[in-house]
């Protein structure tokens, strides 16, 4: 393996982590959006709030990771991608601001109207961000980003069948992942009605995602034949099949309420898609415009980057393990609070009076 390839693998791993963890956070926004009126929806929203609060910032950092590895290891690709795909990327980053802020603020809302306004912002932007990021990836994968400073078409580079498909898939996959995780969290929180609600959502969204993924194949075949020709044999094909199997397994596990395992298989389905995409695009980083080796920075830089990331990983991996262990054990769990009932005057439960 060349250094460039190792860097690519790391970057794709970061992208996968973002798609799985960050994607689920976006998906939670969809369930928030569609939860229904204050009465019925309040319980779902409370669950979303409770599950996401401790982890969403850490999950978001994966995106930063992908971006900085891209510009360090493959600077020309970075400049070309960002200058051509500036419209979806700008919209995505705008959505990121609104989503993060609205989510952070919603926890402090004191009236139902505030909670509604912030909740609506959080939930609707949760749909936009994965869509635009997915559309940008679709533009890259279908070979619509040439090398140069904004030399690609600012509109057709992301308003095209492949981009729209990938954008849509990003949204539904996130929703599916979110429902699986939230169902698991509901079991831990001992809220059977929430478990049922998210289980049903996990099944529906899983079926939609599966159908959409199959429907995507003919679209790719006609709109991005080069990419598609990488998916019909070898590693590309194997990944597509593996992804489908993992998806089916997830559905079965959800039916059986084995959410811990379903978490793993649903993530594996995303991993397989990313591997398949990489295999199909090989050896290009920007299809038709730039190969991986052409795009790569010099070996000193790549070695420095890998060294830095290795040291970083030694710190980061134990930290992440610690965080997720605390989360999964429930140590950091906040008291579950439906998002509508807070506004009903209740006796304060400040046992020690220090909770400000």
């Amino acid at each position, binding site marked *: 393996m060349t250094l460039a390839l190792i860097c690519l693998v790391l970057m794709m791993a970061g992208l996968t982590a973002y798609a799985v963890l960050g994607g689920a956070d976006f998906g939670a926004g969809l369930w928030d959006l569609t939860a229904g009126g204050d009465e019925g929806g309040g319980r779902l929203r409370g669950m979303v709030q409770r599950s996401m609060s401790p982890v969403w910032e850490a999950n978001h950092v994966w995106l930063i990771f992908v971006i900085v590895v891209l510009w360090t290891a493959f600077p020309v690709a*970075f400049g070309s991608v960002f200058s051509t795909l500036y419209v979806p990327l700008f919209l995505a980053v705008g959505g990121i601001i609104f989503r993060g802020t609205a989510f*952070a603020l919603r926890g402090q809302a004191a009236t139902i109207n505030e909670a509604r306004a912030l909740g609506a912002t959080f939930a609707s932007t949760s749909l936009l961000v994965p869509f635009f990021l997915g559309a940008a990836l679709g533009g890259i994968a279908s070979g619509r980003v040439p090398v140069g400073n*904004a030399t690609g078409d600012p509109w057709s580079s992301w308003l095209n069948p492949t981009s729209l498909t990938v954008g849509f898939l990003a949204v539904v996959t996130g929703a599916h992942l979110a429902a699986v995780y939230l169902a698991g969290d509901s079991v831990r929180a001992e809220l059977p009605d929430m478990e049922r609600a998210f289980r049903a959502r996990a099944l529906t969204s899983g079926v939609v995602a599966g159908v959409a993924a199959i429907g995507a194949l003919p679209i790719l075949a006609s709109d991005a034949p080069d990419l598609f020709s990488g998916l019909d044999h070898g590693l590309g094909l194997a990944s597509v099949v593996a992804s489908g199997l993992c998806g089916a397994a997830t559905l079965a596990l959800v039916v059986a309420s084995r959410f811990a395992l379903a978490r793993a298989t649903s993530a594996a389905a995303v991993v397989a898609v990313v591997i398949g995409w990489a295999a199909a695009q090989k050896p290009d980083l920007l299809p038709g415009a730039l190969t991986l080796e052409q795009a790569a920075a010099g070996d000193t830089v790549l070695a420095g980057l890998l060294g830095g990331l290795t040291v970083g990983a030694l710190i980061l991996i134990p930290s992440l393990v610690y965080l997720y262990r605390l989360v999964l054990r429930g140590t950091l769990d906040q008291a579950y609070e439906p998002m509508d009932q807070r506004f009903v005057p209740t006796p304060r439960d400040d046992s020690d009076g220090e909770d400000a």
Partner: protein
Amino acid sequence: MAIVPIGDVVLAAVDPVRGALGQTDQEHLLPARELQALSFIVHIPIVCFGIAFPAMFLFVEGLWLRTGNPVYKALAKRWSKIALVLFAVGVVTGTILSFEFGLLWPNFTATFGDVFGLAFALEGISFFVEAIFIAIYVYGWDRLPRRTHFLVGIPVVIAGLTGSLTVLTVNGWMNNPRGFDLVNGKVVNPQPFTALFGGNVWHELVHMYLAGYMVVGFLVAGYYGRRWLKGRRDHYTRTAMIVGLTFAALAAPVQVVVGDWAARTVAEKQPVKLASFEGLGKTTKGAPFHIGGYYSDGEIRAGIAVPKLLSLLAFHDPNATVKGVETVPEADRPPVNVVRTSFMVMVSVGSALMALGLWFLVLWWRRGRLPRSPWFYRALMAAGPLALLALISGWVTTEVGRQPWVVYKYMRTEQAVTDADGLWLAFGVMVVVYAALIAATGWLLRRLASTSAADEIPEHG
């Protein structure tokens, strides 16, 4: 090097770097600049809280662990919740900045990304650590054992430092570039570690880090000082005010010394920037320093001259020769009045805040009490916003003083900019977005403040 100054004779050469994405049209420079500056003006004050607040609430938590007094716990808890919210805002505004490296300056990143990018990879790790541990800390109150909870806060403090370090290595490198070779206009042989740790990073780091403590310390002290002045003289308010004030007051005098170090480094590495601080047109031996006035046609008008002061400040020698702005052609000079004004603002504020800090420190040291004059508390309420003003002015000094270069003497900012359209539209949108963000954050902080922690303690013990 583009410019080889020999005395005041100037030899100009062609622009040395060819952008990796080709030449740009340059028509988008102004909106890109404004958008970049706007984004920094929002991000940097917020991240001051990421730098300084964790150390403050950990200090207060330490007081709680030692004394068991619930007032300390209530305060530390309250501050850590505020820090978490501001951290979230720092995360989103920081994300915008990283996107802007590509959305606004693709040719800069494409050409030099391999030289400086490593720093941001390390920065990412720092922020990861910060995000993980601040969440554990805040959500872990009353759920983790006390000592563990305290220890979990320490990585947050460290990550604030290393995060700033890595970002500032990039800025230090942009101001004093090295660690690569130019062959026929192409950047080759990048040496990231030389580039990042050999530039102007060290004074920038210390200066920025202290600035974080001054900004947060004075803002906090001013907030509680206002309550103090209104007669809320309980233990909670007093502790909060004194902790903020102590951090800020200790930082303020040191900041002036570090500022002097910064100025001397700039005098050596970026003489034209230094000349802009003062508005020195011609190279002068024993150069004076003007207070007030404005720069026009190579000299300061309507200012009060202090003889030889500039030489003294820049080189610690009243008779040293200071290079003037006119050692480089017009096209290579920064907008002198912008740089000079912001420098003056920073230095005036810095001196005033040092005086305020010393007032407190001396009284505290000698008499063991707080100042009694209401004017002290009124000044304290102004000190936070003033520190913010100094912070922004300092960055304007550094960044505008670097112009017209993005990579000092290697790449012009106009070469770096994107060719994409619609930047004014993007700028307009971002103005609205940032206004909403600031309003929402302000709303949230007021909301947090309205559920008073202090009110609850006496009743419950």
